[in-house]
Each structure stands twice: as C-alpha cells, then as structure tokens.
C-alpha cells in the first residue's frame, strides 16, 4: 500500500513508524506492517516527523542526499564526521551534562573486544550513567550508492554484506523487494531453502550471543559451550550450503544453489547435538544466582518506550512487543507451521536472554519441519528487466529488515535499507542510563545492534 500525502497529512500521520528516506523528488515514511506514504520535497526539504524513531533516518537523509527535515535542523550529522578525503577528522565534542559532579567518559571507535567500531560518550556521576550518546557512522561504505545503477542480481552481493551476521535475512529482504518490483514469485523449493537458512542464521546468532553475554557476566564456561554450538551450525551451513555464513545463497528469484549432498544429514546432526546440550546450559543460566544478579533488572527498556520506537526482534519482544515479520500474512513458508513467538515483559537483559533461549528450540523445530517438507522443483527464476517499486521485509535474528527499491528497466534506480538496529540504538542509549557504567558491555551485547547495518 502506497499513498501520497500533503505536507500536513504527512506530519499528522500516526502509526508504528519503521523508517524514513528520500529520493530525488520525495520523502518516504514506512509504517508497520508495510504502509508506505510519501510527500513531495520542497526546496530540498520536507517537514520533520515527530516519531521517536525518525531521528537517525532524518539525519541520514541529510548526510546522504542533502535533504533537510524542517524543524529538525539542529540535530547532529549521522554518518558525516567531517572527515577530509584522507580521513583526518576532528575529535568529536559533546555537550556536558549540567549536573554538578558529572564527568564524561569517551569509548571507541576502537573497542577492547573483537567488535565493530562506534563511539560512545557517557556522562557519568560516580558509576551511574546519566546519559549516553552513541556516535555511529564509522562503518559507512556508501552501500546505497554502490547498489544504484545495477541489476538486482548484480546488487545482491551488496545486500549480503550490509550486516554479515544477518547476511541471509538481508539477502532475503532484498530479494523480496526485487521480486515484488519485478512481479516474480520464487519457486516453492527456494522458499523452503531460504527459510532453512534464515532459521540456521537465527540459531547461530542466538547461541553465540547468549554465550557472549554469559561470558561478559564472568561465566566463561557458558561462553565456550555456546560458541561451540555456533561452530557446529557454521560447519553444518558449510556442508549444506557451501558457506559458513550462507552468504550469497539467497538471490533475487530464488536461491543460488540446492542443498548439497549430505547437507540434510549434517544440519540434522548439528540440530540434535545442540538440542541435547541446550537444557543443561539453560539450567546453569537459571540456577546461578550470581549470573542472575548481573542480568535481572539491568539495562531496562520499558514496554512503553519499546512501543514508541516500534522495537522489533528480541529487543521488542523482551519488552512486551509481539511483532515478528514472520507472522505477517504472505510471509512464506511460515504460515502453515504455526510459529511460536515468545514475549516477555521485564525489558531487562534477563528478559532478552530468555526470549533468545526460547527462540532456539523453535528454530530447531522449524528447520526440521522445513527439511521434512522440502518441495521438489526449480531453484531460481531469472528476473526479467522490469520497471516498478518493491518493498520487502525479512525477520533477521535481531528483528525486521526492510528493503525498498525502485527498478527502472531492470536497474536499481533507487534503494533504501532499514535494519532493525536503527530503532534499537536509541533504546540502548536509554537502557544504559538505568544501570552503572560497568554494566554497559553486557547491556550493549544484550541488544547487539548492528553498526554496519545502520552505517550503510
């Protein structure tokens, strides 16, 4: 559903805001569950939207396309750090917190662990965090510009590399958008194989992230075992799909390749091994008071705030939000498999862990059922050079990933990508202020926003 609005209607529009972007002539806003509205640009600008989650998108539109959100001019840049072509850039200044005794702590962009770059500026008083400002954009590679002017088949390798941990989900959302624009329905076997890959990816991330959180709380044993579960999944993915992260396997029109010989057995073996291990790991989580002490009540995201930001994935579902793109009508092949989506209310690190622990057995069940009911037939339909607009969504492990694109004679004339993380970063900024500075790594990991997926 797409609709043009007047400037007044645009500003008055209500709904669960998902994303905003601009092209040469219009500003677009996307609302759940896929309602797209647009307004004509006037003198290179459009009226700012008041939705909580709109901030990053409006800053990004200004940095990428020079389009100003009227009424939001004072916001800082998103990805434009004012760096010279050789990369030299000024040290960022952040206004100080007015409270007596407050001081600032600057962290990043280079962090202590093996993670992506971002800068965090904390205003703290003692150990209490008063305010957190995240400065992102360090991973900005100009992906949207690289995708323009290419055919969907050619551009798919960029979609697969927007956020490597969600490569399947990003490729899938991109394929959904490209297929809608070209009026193409992928063959049933491809739909099943895609869903198998998507669930394996979800499992791989859930296992290693839950382990990493336990590791941050001082439980190296859990970290080591959960990392092992992830490794089994990566090896099964390699056996089944020829790539440990299943990169470039989902393509517009279908899938790049069939399930390899022996792949089914490897995947089933990995699932059984994980299933056997999960209950005892889960028990450690639940039994150990000193672990519970670190995660219960830490990094709070109240349900009303999650609602205001339309948070998805485990961030939203740990704070009472029911959304899951896999539940939306027409999201094949889940409709006939009675998907169970766990929801918690507490909104703390413990609730986010709980949601992810509960999603693991569900993904195991789904992969088994998808494998058991795998249809025969074609793997991929060649996309015809088409002209049209497409909107696609896929539920990544961290929430919905949206792709919007416009095809002109088979070439991408314009495109936008909204990773679920975009709406989660501001929630991290809030959650940090409910705890002490030393808890931040744990809180950050519990949200696990993608830096690359937001910086584009």
């Amino acid at each position, binding site marked *: 559903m797409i609709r043009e609005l007047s400037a007044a209607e645009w500003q008055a529009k209500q709904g669960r805001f998902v994303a905003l972007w601009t092209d040469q002539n219009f500003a677009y806003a996307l609302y759940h569950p896929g309602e797209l509205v647009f307004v004509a640009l006037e003198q290179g600008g459009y009226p700012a939207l008041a939705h909580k989650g709109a901030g990053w998108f409006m800053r990004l539109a200004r940095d990428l396309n020079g389009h100003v959100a009227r009424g939001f001019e004072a916001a800082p840049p998103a990805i434009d750090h004012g760096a010279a072509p*050789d990369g030299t850039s000024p040290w960022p200044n952040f206004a100080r917190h007015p409270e007596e005794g407050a001081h600032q702590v600057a962290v990043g*962009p280079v962090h202590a662990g*093996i993670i992506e*770059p971002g800068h965090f500026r904390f205003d703290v008083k003692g150990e209490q965090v008063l305010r957190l400002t995240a400065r992102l954009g360090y*991973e900005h590679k100009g992906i949207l510009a690289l995708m323009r002017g290419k055919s969907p088949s050619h551009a798919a390798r960029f979609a697969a*590399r927007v*956020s490597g941990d969600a490569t399947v989900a990003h490729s899938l959302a991109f394929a959904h958008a490209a297929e809608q624009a070209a009026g193409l329905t992928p063959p049933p076997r491809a739909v099943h194989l895609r869903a198998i890959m998507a669930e394996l990816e979800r499992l791989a991330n859930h296992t290693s992230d839950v382990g990493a959180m336990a590791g941050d709380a001082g439980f190296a044993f859990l970290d080591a075992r959960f990392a092992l579960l992830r*490794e*089994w999944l990566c090896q099964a993915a390699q056996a089944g799909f020829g790539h440990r992260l299943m990169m470039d396997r989902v393509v517009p029109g279908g899938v790049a390749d069939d399930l390899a010989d022996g792949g089914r057995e490897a995947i089933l073996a990995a699932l059984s091994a994980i299933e056997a291990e999960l209950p005892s790991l889960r028990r450690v989580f639940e039994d150990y008071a000193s672990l519970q002490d670190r995660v219960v009540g830490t990094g709070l995201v109240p349900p009303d705030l999650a609602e205001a930001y339309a948070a998805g994935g485990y961030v939203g579902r740990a704070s009472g939000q029911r959304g899951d793109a896999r539940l939306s009508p027409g999201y094949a092949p889940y409709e006939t498999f009675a998907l169970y989506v766990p929801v918690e209310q507490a909104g703390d690190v413990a609730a986010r862990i709980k949601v992810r622990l509960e999603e693991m057995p569900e993904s195991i069940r789904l992969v088994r059922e998808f494998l058991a009911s795998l249809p025969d037939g074609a793997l991929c339909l060649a996309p015809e050079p088409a002209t049209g607009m497409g909107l696609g969504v896929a539920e990544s492990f961290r929430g919905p990933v949206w792709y919007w694109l416009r095809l002109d004679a088979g070439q991408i004339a314009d495109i936008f990508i909204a990773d679920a993380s975009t709406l989660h970063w501001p929630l991290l900024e809030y959650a940090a202020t409910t705890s002490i500075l030393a808890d931040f790594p744990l809180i950050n990991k519990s949200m696990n926003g993608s830096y690359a997926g937001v910086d584009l």
Partner: protein
Amino acid sequence: MVWKTTIQHLLRRAAPALRPDPALAKEMRARLEAAAAQRLGRALSIRHVAAGSCNGCELELRATQTLIYDLTQYGLSFVASPRHADILLVTGVSTRNMAQALREARAAMPDPALVVAVGDCAVDGGVFKGSPVVLGGTKALVPVDLVIAGCPPNPAEIIAGLVTLVEAHDTKMPPKPKILPGMA
C-alpha cells in the same frame, strides 16, 4: 546444583561430532614451535581493529578463539589495547571515517609490529572497492605485512595465515628475552 550440572555436562559430551582437522592443527603447531622458540620467547599479542567491515570477518575472528580452533594453543591471543600488541589485525575496507582511528591504533603500538589485513575488504576494499568513502583496504592507511583473503576467510585459514606470518618474520621480530631484566 550448578557444579553437578557442569560435571555431568563435561562427562556426557566428551566427543562432539564435528571436529577440526587434527592433522592440520598438529602441523601448524609443529611449524610454529620451530619458528617461535627462538623468535618469540613468549606469546604474541594481537590487537584487532574493524575499519569498515560488514561484521562477517569479526564472526570468524571470534571463532578462532573457540574450543575447536583455540588460537591460544599457538601462542597467539587477542588483547584489549594496541599498546600491548605485537600484531595489528585489521578487518574492513578502511572507510574514511575509520582512517584516523586506524592510523592512531598503529602509532600506539610498540615497534617492531606486524600488520595483517584479514578478509577481502581489508585486502583492497573487496566488493566495496570504488566507493568514494572507501579508501581501499588496510594498505591505503598503514603498511601491511600479510593479507588473508576470503569473504570471510574461515577460522582455519586465519590461523594458518597468522602462523605463516610468525614463521616468515624472524628478522623483523627480535627474540623476546625469556627472563626479563631484573627478574633473574
């Protein structure tokens, strides 16, 4: 309660179905022992900097630390600051926004130091080559001693690359004293 669970756990799952190639691990350890004894004296420390990756390479870097690959068995470990590191391991395309931080991380390291570019992005920008905000891999910002290609390279390839690096640089890396001055 917990210790019981833990012990049961360790007993029950002694032999996971999926294992790394033991021959490969053995060969790499042997190669490293030959080179490391006189060159390193003690372990080498690695500092990782992500300079515009998709985060895929980070996943495989982290996998080198798992029970299966166990990077530390080769005397190599990740440290939290470039000031403690012998090896700077870089992933990502070298974005314009990360250029300054990457240069500063290299400058913070004590010399001699080695620089490894991991992943196609770090080799030359990979698929993102040609974007105006992509400076073109690690070599665009700091001199590189070794590249480990792949998108992403798998954990075994990353470890093999690091072992090769240690082998090849006996002149650049002076032996570290086994006994520090003043300790004897």
